[in-house]
């Protein structure tokens, strides 16, 4: 965001909201208070714990809140940072900052390796892999005594000097931790507004869609894990410095669960939520100690309460306390103004046609699922700048063909050439970078993101021929929304849009990537008559003079006939007819395939 735009945005929000001022004052006051008022050593250590834990919980915000990947090994990353610092300084006599860098670096590398396991495994596997990793860390910390000093732990961890000033005073060290925490909160808060942050949220909301529109989902997940682990490492190292002593039970599975609970309670989707959750869960046990004797049992069962709280949070406030506050705040405030649509540039969709080779060529394409031959040796050529429809009865292999074309499935045999290049071994995001855009039969958007954000994710694909910078991405996305007639809905979360509009947003997302080849999977499915007519108009505008090639599937023969230059008909995974709409729709085999007329064997 440019400085001018940021200023304008701030002005739109009503300059200074009173809340922001309160938060700012509290934030500044917190680390200063101990210097002014007398604060006991115990209270300082509680605060030290809160700040260092909060930094680790920020890691949970990045990986779980933003990217939607479960990480139950945050305590291990916290441990890498702590052990790196402790061993570096206390055992090998290295300087503080170098030891810290080693600890954080080790955590980041471990995080990257763990993230790499998401190549094949998401969801449950990831939960289990991270738990296993956490358990192994614990086993090694306890048993590899020569290095980790085992259960006795490592005492005598020193603190650093900053600008020649040794931070031996708890208050000074706490100030350092707090400043680092503020810095990291700001960075994590900023992250969703970046290319990487949007890609992360895309992965969380719909990983397949993100991949298809050009997000290198694996890289994004690995990056999320690396960042998360590094944040855990920083928190752990500062923790070790603060308490001067560490032992394995600071970094076991229970601690990982605490980090998870903190993130969930406060709200995993915001760094402020993470910090809030951490503060609450650290202060809670201390408050419980002050309670009347009758309630003292609570402190013995506080972990059980954590567990119960996790279930209740999942059921009643999935976005945590911060989410509740934010939603209440959003309701109290007026709706954000729609962006100025007057100055939106028309969408540039032009593709220069210089060659006569087909834009898409399928050679002997086969895709088998076990014994089922969903696609069984299909050859199709889609000419540049034409609309080519693929039709056939249910189960004839149309969607499978489309999924093989954009790389969701690897073909059993055969080749796919896009714009003359063999893309057969390439992943969906590489094909998107090659200029293949796509929509889905069952709409796949990023539901909690705004229409504009959805479309920006489409615009930020690799090799998109637009200027660099956020402003260009935003303009491109606004133009694409304007093209489908939804620029005034840019700031609306897409889950709040009606079905027909969601379809259009999906098309806009594909168009924002300036595709050479647009794949539309049943674009008319679920639309009413008016919406269908609007879709036909849209498709006609797309084919007029832009040089864009469209390959589409639909069951609505009226629509297919109106917009297509050529039609290919599949039945039982084989091509049974091809030609102009007039030729194909009167072809006896096609009629037989649809109506099941006897006497026309199609196999």
């Amino acid at each position, binding site marked *: 965001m440019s400085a001018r735009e940021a200023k304008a945005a701030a002005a739109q929000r009503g300059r200074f909201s009173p809340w922001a001022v309160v938060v700012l004052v509290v934030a500044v006051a917190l680390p200063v208070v101990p210097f002014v008022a007398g604060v006991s050593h115990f209270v300082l250590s509680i605060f030290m714990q809160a700040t260092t834990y909060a930094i680790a919980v920020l890691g949970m915000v990045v990986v779980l809140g933003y990217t939607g990947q479960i990480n139950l090994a945050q305590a291990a990353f916290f441990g890498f940072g702590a052990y790196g610092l402790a061993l570096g300084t206390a055992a090998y006599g290295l300087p503080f900052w170098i030891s810290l860098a080693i600890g954080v670096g080790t955590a980041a590398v471990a995080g990257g390796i763990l993230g790499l396991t998401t190549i*094949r*495994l998401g969801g449950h*596997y990831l939960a289990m892999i991270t738990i296993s990793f956490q358990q192994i860390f614990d*086993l090694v910390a306890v048993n590899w005594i020569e290095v980790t000093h085992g259960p006795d732990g490592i005492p005598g961890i020193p603190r650093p000097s900053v600008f020649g000033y040794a931070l031996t005073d708890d208050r000074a060290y706490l100030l350092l931790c707090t400043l680092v925490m503020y810095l990291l909160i700001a960075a994590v808060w900023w992250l969703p507004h970046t290319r990487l942050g949007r890609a992360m949220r895309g992965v969380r909301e719909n990983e*397949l869609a993100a991949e298809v529109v050009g997000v290198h989902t694996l890289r994004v997940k690995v990056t999320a894990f690396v960042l998360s682990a590094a944040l855990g490492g920083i928190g752990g190292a500062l923790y070790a410095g603060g308490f001067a002593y560490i032992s394995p039970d600071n970094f076991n599975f229970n601690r990982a669960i605490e980090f998870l609970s903190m993130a969930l309670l406060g709200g995993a989707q915001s760094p402020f939520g993470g910090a809030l959750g951490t503060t609450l869960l650290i202060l809670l046990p201390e408050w419980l100690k002050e309670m009347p004797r009758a309630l003292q049992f609570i402190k013995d069962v506080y972990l059980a309460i*954590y567990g119960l709280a*996790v*279930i209740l949070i999942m059921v009643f406030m999935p976005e945590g306390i911060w989410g509740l506050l934010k939603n209440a705040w959003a309701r109290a405030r007026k709706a954000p103004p729609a962006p100025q649509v007057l100055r939106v540039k028309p969408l540039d969709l032009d593709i220069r046609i210089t060659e006569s080779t087909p834009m898409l060529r399928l050679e002997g394409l086969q895709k088998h699922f076990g014994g089922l031959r969903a696609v069984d040796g299909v050859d199709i050529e889609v000419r540049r700048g034409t609309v080519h429809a693929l039709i056939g009865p249910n189960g004839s292999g149309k969607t499978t063909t489309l999924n093989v074309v954009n790389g969701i499935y690897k073909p059993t045999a055969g080749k796919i050439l896009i714009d003359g290049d063999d893309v057969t071994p390439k992943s969906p995001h590489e094909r998107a970078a090659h200029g293949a855009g796509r929509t889905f*039969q069952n709409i796949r958007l990023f539901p909690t993101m705004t229409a504009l954000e959805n479309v920006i994710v489409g615009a930020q694909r690799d090799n998109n021929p637009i200027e660099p910078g956020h402003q260009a991405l935003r303009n491109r996305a606004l133009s694409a929304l304007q093209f489908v007639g939804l620029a005034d809905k840019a700031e609306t979360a897409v889950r709040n849009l009606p079905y027909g509009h969601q379809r259009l947003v999906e098309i806009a997302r594909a168009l924002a990537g300036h595709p050479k080849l647009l794949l539309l999977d049943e674009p008319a499915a679920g639309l009413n008559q008016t919406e269908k007519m609007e879709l036909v108009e849209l498709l006609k505008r797309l084919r007029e003079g832009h040089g864009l090639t469209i390959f589409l599937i639909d069951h609505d023969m009226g629509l297919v006939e109106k917009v297509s230059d050529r039609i290919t008909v599949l039945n039982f995974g084989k091509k049974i007819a091809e030609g102009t709409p007039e030729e194909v729709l009167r072809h006896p085999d096609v009629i037989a395939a649809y109506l099941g007329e006897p006497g026309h064997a199609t196999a």
Partner: protein
Amino acid sequence: MEALANNLQVLFQGLALGSIYALVSLGFVLIIRATNVVNFAQGDFAMLGAYIMVACLTGAGAPYWLAFVLALLAMAAFGLLFNFGVYYPLRHRSFLPVLISTLGASIFMQNTVLAIFGAQPRAMEKVLNFDGLHVGGVFLDSQYLVILAVTMVMVAFQYFFFEHTLVGKKLQATSQDKDMARLLGIPVALMIAITFLYSATLGGLAGVLVGPILFVSIGMGSIIALKAFAATIIGGFGDVKGAIVGGLFIGVVESFAAYYISVPYKDAYAFLMLFLVLIFRPQGFFGEKVSEKA
């Protein structure tokens, strides 16, 4: 000759431990098939079952067989409670909230039991009151024999139940296609509740069987669950046959590795196997490769 006997001894222990993993893994698989979610409290079903049995035996002084039956009945009831408290409110959400919710349940169960029974592990008597048999140079512990026998009976029962009873067929239909099952008039919510009931009972059974061998402790469930889950993946995610073979496989590998390599890291071998399988055969022994449908 002695080496052979030693190896057979290790193999026997591995198979018995593996049977426990297989029982818990079966519970995993049934819930995965019914709800598409891994229940991270599956191991704690075993822990809870074992503690209930301990409470019946030492607290209430019940006879062994009665304590056994009561523990299983309690676990069946708990399975229903679990279904309605932990899964049902979240049934329309994506897998992540459900997974986290079961994780919360696991923490809740462990710490509640901890608050009631304390951290000291409890000993439990064996099912049979003789130590075991000597066959050749191999000592066959009676509890291990019981575990093997019960596992075989349960596998046979499950096969019969799912393939030859109406409820079993309905359960299968539910796990394969919930929407279609609903259209056919199968009460899907009830079927899922039954699945939780059965899985909790299976878990409880594993717990009361393994109690005499491992000691009854708060953490026993987590360790068993991790290995059972490894078994689930190694066998092929969501595959019943795979759960059993995977469980036995983990048990045997672990026993041999502990015998020949190192005991302190005993609990790490399952994960090592898991990593290897995930790298070289990610669909597991029996699983088919699946990708998400567009």
